[in-house]
């Protein structure tokens, strides 16, 4: 498997650290109900198909990446830097 880092280019998957679902990007407000925090940290939909998840280019430029891919076909549809997303700031 390979991922194309927007900065470094196409790279072997062993350069990347897998973290988890895109959900981690959406941190609840500090005073949000505990259920929202539970959702944020623990509850996943586990889709078969197109998913978005977070990878870290640990062996490269140290960018956190949002990867859109299809778990059925293994196709990688897009890779973007988390820091470059629109409205990335909290």
């Amino acid at each position, binding site marked *: 498997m390979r991922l194309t880092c927007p900065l470094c280019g196409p790279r072997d998957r*062993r350069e990347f650290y897998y973290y988890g679902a895109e959900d981690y990007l959406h941190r609840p407000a500090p005073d949000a109900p505990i259920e929202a925090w539970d959702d944020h940290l623990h509850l996943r939909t586990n889709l078969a198909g197109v998913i978005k998840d977070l990878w870290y280019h640990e062996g*490269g430029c140290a*960018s956190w990446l949002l990867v859109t891919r299809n778990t059925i076909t293994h196709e990688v549809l897009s890779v973007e830097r988390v820091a470059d997303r629109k409205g990335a700031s909290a």
Partner: protein
Amino acid sequence: MPELIAKTALDGQGALTLIGTTLAPVDLGIITSIAPFAGQVKAIDTALKPLGLSFPPPNTTAASGAARLVWTGPDQALLIGADAPDLGTAAATTDQSGGWSALRLSGARVADVMARLCPLDFRPSAFAPGQAARAQLGHMNAVFWAEKDALMILTFRSMAQTAWDECAHALTALAARAGA
């Protein structure tokens, strides 16, 4: 008062040449990390002008005289071989001298040696002089850049011996093939 003697990580290590390819430790001298704050690249370029350099785009490096700038990540580059100019509040800078250990791999079989150590394609057609990359040497995070007929490899100082051993091992195995 103590007299502190400076020592590189591969102090005393001579070069290794096999099948027209040479592995040698290099002392890079002063290294400074430069991390421009948002919107400050222009100011930094102005400050770098006397060195004949400007802040490098991703995956590139440029040299001017003894000074070299290498891209090492988003908003980050290493200035090597020259004192950093005063960048004021335009950038975060840190002294990185001695934090990196450098190897220079040169000669005919550079790409073949590297093919044993890193998934990146280091053939000149894919990694020409002026190009730089953050990638791994074996399991070690590294900085690479291409020079004419040579490749520079920077790893953390503490891992210098492993970096040497792995490169030397790959070169030795290739030489054994050539003798086969």
